């Protein structure tokens, strides 16, 4: 009796657990294709804003194709030429290919980014990225400035990194053809500054690293030009104010 019951239980469990195959994985992704009516193959590329690693180059005749794009609503960043860029909203159908047809690029905008470290400290390996775009880890110049673009109209999140500084983020919104200045303030970890200050990071050009770790114009007369004396970390002419 117990044996029969055991067999019945196993059979029932097997039946309830079901048999067959149901697969949904092929329908989790789709593909997108299209053609840019105006493009520069040297710079043009199309990528998924929320998954920038999914990207495609653009052929000479402007065609592009994206594979393995997550199904559902998504936004593409389209970089067409050195001045034109845009966002495209697309509904990706699971397991299917979406053809966008001809895409007419729009005029893009530019951001003039300036990084400002605290206490006039010197920046090394300072870079800027714009999330969801091909602009990643771009080096700033010696004045800590960078021009980024073209960017699609809308709002963008910028990320700034520099050795010894904490990553900094900023949001900037631009319109078609607009140029905008963006200042990103960098910070350094509190302890780092207290313990080392400029003795480790150095100071911007022309500044002196004072014994207390701050960058100043001078902290002794030798740092000043002839006829000047160092008073309150500033070079002053003798007899002057």
């Amino acid at each position, binding site marked *: 009796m117990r044996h029969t019951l055991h067999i019945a239980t196993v059979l*029932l469990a097997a*039946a*309830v*657990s*079901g*048999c*067959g*195959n*149901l*697969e*949904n*994985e*092929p*329908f*989790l*992704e*789709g*593909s997108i294709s299209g053609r840019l009516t105006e493009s520069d193959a040297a710079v043009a590329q199309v990528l998924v804003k929320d998954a920038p690693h999914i990207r495609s180059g653009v052929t000479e005749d402007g065609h592009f194709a994206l594979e393995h794009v*997550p*199904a*559902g*609503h998504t936004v593409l960043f389209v970089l067409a030429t050195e001045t034109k860029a845009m966002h495209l909203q697309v*509904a*990706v*159908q*699971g*397991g*299917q*290919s979406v053809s966008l047809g001809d895409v007419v690029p729009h005029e893009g905008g530019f951001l003039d980014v300036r990084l400002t470290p605290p206490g006039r400290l010197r920046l090394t390996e300072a870079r800027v990225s714009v999330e969801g775009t091909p602009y990643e880890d771009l080096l700033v110049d010696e004045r800590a400035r960078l021009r980024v673009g073209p960017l699609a109209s809308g709002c963008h999140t910028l990320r700034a990194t520099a050795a010894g500084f904490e990553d900094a983020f900023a949001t900037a919104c631009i319109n078609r053809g607009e140029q905008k200045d963006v200042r990103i303030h960098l910070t350094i970890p509190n302890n780092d500054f207290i313990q080392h200050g400029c003795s480790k990071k150095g100071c911007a050009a022309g500044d002196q690293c004072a014994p207390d770790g701050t960058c100043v114009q001078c902290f002794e007369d030798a740092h000043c030009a002839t006829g000047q004396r160092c008073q309150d970390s500033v070079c002053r002419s003798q007899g002057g104010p």
Partner: protein
Amino acid sequence: MTRIVPIILLGALVACASPSSGEKGGLVPLKLDEEALSSAYQPRRLALLIGVDTYDDPQWRNLRYSAKDATDLAEALRDPARGRFTQVRVLNRPEETTRAGILAALRQLKQEATRPDDVVVVYLSAHGTLARDTRGELRRYLVARDSSYNAIPQTALSMDALKAEFDELPSRRRLLVLATCHSGSGKSLLPKELQEELRGIKSGFYARPLEESSRASMVFAACDWGETAREDEALQNDIYTHFLIEGLNGAADRNADGAVTATEAHDYARRRTFAFTEGRQRPSAEILEVGADPVVLSGGIHRTGRPELYSYSPRLDGFTLKVDGEPRTELPGGTAVVPGRRKVELTKGDATLVSREVHVAPGERLPLEELLADSSRRHSLALLAGMFRFTDERSRAELLPATPHLALALRLEDLPVRDWGLLFDVSASTGSTNLSMALGSLTPFRYTTLSAGVALPYLWRWERLTLFAGPRVAALYLRRSFDVEAYVGAQNYLTVSPGVVGGVTVELDERLELTSQAQLMMTYVVVDGRGQAEGFTGLWAGMGYRF
């Protein structure tokens, strides 16, 4: 010390239980005579027998045997070997059989028979007549000694009044025997105008039968409506009464249990009267509560009786009861059968109303109306339409959205046991729909679902309404066919699911019913190699055909 405490407590207990004169709360010893106590609680057996044979108004001819009928029946009821009635009162002298005298005797009986288990028999042998009351309605009357032929409603005893008095008796075991008729012949005499009026009616009588019965009471009449109750010179009695008394001698003990019950006695008298009068007099009975048949008129139940099949329902009047192919009796009536499995048929002419195999045990009493109820259409085949859907939103998006279903349901009531049912259903659907793996994503596919279920619901049945609910097991087959860039092909899945079903049916007529049922099932589905428990529901409604 530990030994002293129990002794003190015991002493206190004894002191508390001891009687103490003059104080409240003590126990008082009471001596009771066991025999007196037993007899005080035994149900009493009371009979009032009325025989009216002389009448003041010469228009009513005197009857020869009415008084004798009452006396003879009284003798049988008093007899310790037969009726064992403890109180038998006979009203047959002229000074006792006036209208007022009869009513007074009934009211006195009401004061004496105060307990529900008292057995009360009221017997009336007299002229019956019909007359229009003050509102012009035709009524039955019992003619008392002082009833006037020209003022029947005012001077005769209205059967309605008599019934009202009878119904007020507290006893649940009461029997009214009417050895009188109202047909205008024999022991009945109608005014000439009424006779003329009734002669013009082709189909006999006509108004509703007056042998009514209230709950737990029985009314036996010596003749059916429109027939004649007869006295017979050779029998020296009213014919029905003669055979009723004969039945009390033991001849009527149909099931051989040692007791002659009221229905047995009436059946015996009825059959014998019918045969004796060659079909001209057919005694009738109306009995509402005969299941327990509590009125034992003679003898006592000494052994388990043979099983009995019976019916006093007007619905079955005139049908022949056949047992194992042999005609046993005409209904209303009953018959005793050999215990075991019997084939029971109810026929009229060539038509068979019921043909059933029943198993009857010793002592069982089977009302034939139950077979009638059992033989009613208890199965239904229904065509239903409705929706199939998974209970959770994710499954509806990623497995199968809600889909329309077409179903066929077979409901077998009272299987495997009474008030339970077996419910079989198959349903299917096919069509095109979309998966939605993410917001904005639609993947088209074709689907086919097939479901087969069996359920064991309990049935709650009212007149036209039936509710049912119970466990259900169903097999579900799901097929999805895709034809998109990333996938071309079909996916199949089969699972068996436990769950519950509930529903309602409303009978529209003898054959058709509206029915609706809903089920909630649990199952286990494997998608992309990962198993997940799922619930799914079905809600169907449609039309059923009863058979």
